[in-house]
């Protein structure tokens, strides 16, 4: 009986000069079957899309310098550069309004309102140290059109499906984009133990072997 198996695939460090779909084809094509789902780390997708900048390239505004002071130290927006990078994508006043609302919500005991209102990039940005060398001195944005990237992977490699995922060692997994028919929550559950490893840039691809078979059997069992 087929079982789910997670197979991390090691690659060279991918850069903005690479195409993520070409890279998956180069390193993993022979190991991908029609029942498999290919998942790829979101930060590496973003890097191959050239969605990164550095503190030296940013000029933080007065608002960014003040607002970053209200973000807890571990957050990627706690530096004025992380905050400015998010503002460049989501808009300065949107971020400002989200922060005001977030502060009020916090006073009322509700957390997370800032990130809900500030836009996708506010939650996805990785500040300096968020990725491996040579991008450890960069701020990396979230990927563009993750579902489109997933569809492209499926189309090119003939797998059952594909996903772009944000997973870390703190048991937090979010699937940002999937091919039609896949359940992002189910995939997040499968990837929760971070099979990409701590240094996800070295193993940015994880093949979920036998996914289609296992899910079909589980559904058949559920239906009685």
């Amino acid at each position, binding site marked *: 009986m087929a079982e789910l198996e997670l197979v991390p695939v090691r690659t060279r460090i991918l850069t903005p000069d690479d195409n993520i779909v070409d890279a998956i084809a180069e390193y993993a094509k022979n190991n991908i079957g029609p029942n498999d789902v290919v998942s790829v780390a979101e930060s590496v997708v973003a890097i191959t899309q050239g969605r990164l900048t550095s503190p*030296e390239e940013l000029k933080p505004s007065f608002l960014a310098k003040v607002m970053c*002071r209200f973000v807890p130290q571990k957050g990627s927006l706690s*530096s*004025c550069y992380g905050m400015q990078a998010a503002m460049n994508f989501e808009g300065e006043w949107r971020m400002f309004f989200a922060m005001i609302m977030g502060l009020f919500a916090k006073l009322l005991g509700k957390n997370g309102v800032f990130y809900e209102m500030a836009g996708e990039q506010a939650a996805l940005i990785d500040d300096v140290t968020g990725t491996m*060398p040579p991008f*450890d001195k960069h701020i990396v944005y979230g990927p563009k059109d993750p579902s489109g990237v997933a569809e492209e992977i499926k189309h090119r490699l003939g797998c059952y499906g594909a996903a772009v995922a944000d997973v870390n060692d703190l048991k937090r997994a979010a699937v940002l984009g999937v091919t039609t028919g896949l359940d992002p929550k189910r995939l997040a559950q499968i990837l929760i133990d971070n099979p990409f490893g701590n240094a996800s840039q070295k193993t940015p691809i994880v093949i979920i072997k036998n996914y289609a078979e296992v899910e079909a059997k589980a559904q058949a069992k559920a239906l009685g």
Partner: protein
Amino acid sequence: MDFLMALIVLAVILVGAVWLYIVRQGDAEFEFLVNQRTDFSLVELTDSKATFSCKVSFVNKGTQDGTIMDAYTRHLLPYEQCDAVEVSSRLELEAAPRTDGYFEALIVPKTTGETVNVTVILTAKNGTITEALKQMVDMPIDIVYQIVARGEWYISKNRMVMRAKEIAQATDRRSAV
């Protein structure tokens, strides 16, 4: 009019409160403790080359976590002062040694620190290194580091001096062994 005045007063109080919050929050503040470094020891000696190493601790003595984006050594030995050796130097984290001279950006929580190993390689331009080292002089070495924390990034440096006497003693110790 009273309403307008109340609004202005409220705005002033709000700005004052935010300013006070930021001032009280403070920022990261880094220092490489060059005055507390270990003596240079001779790590390797060949006919033409001598490699020395010492340890230097650093600390974030500020009130916020900070990131060392980059750190490197800058040795200062102009040929006008000593033309006997060529110098190369590097530093690496003691906890994560690497020999490529690349410093991986590192978050340093407030009031904590780590240690770097500073390596200096002296290569004789002519003849043997033992002979060349007799002409060696005191050599300043800056540890240069780029910091980013709550405020804007900046580059700072702390200077130590690799003493000629220290080099001679380290070489003599090795010769004696």
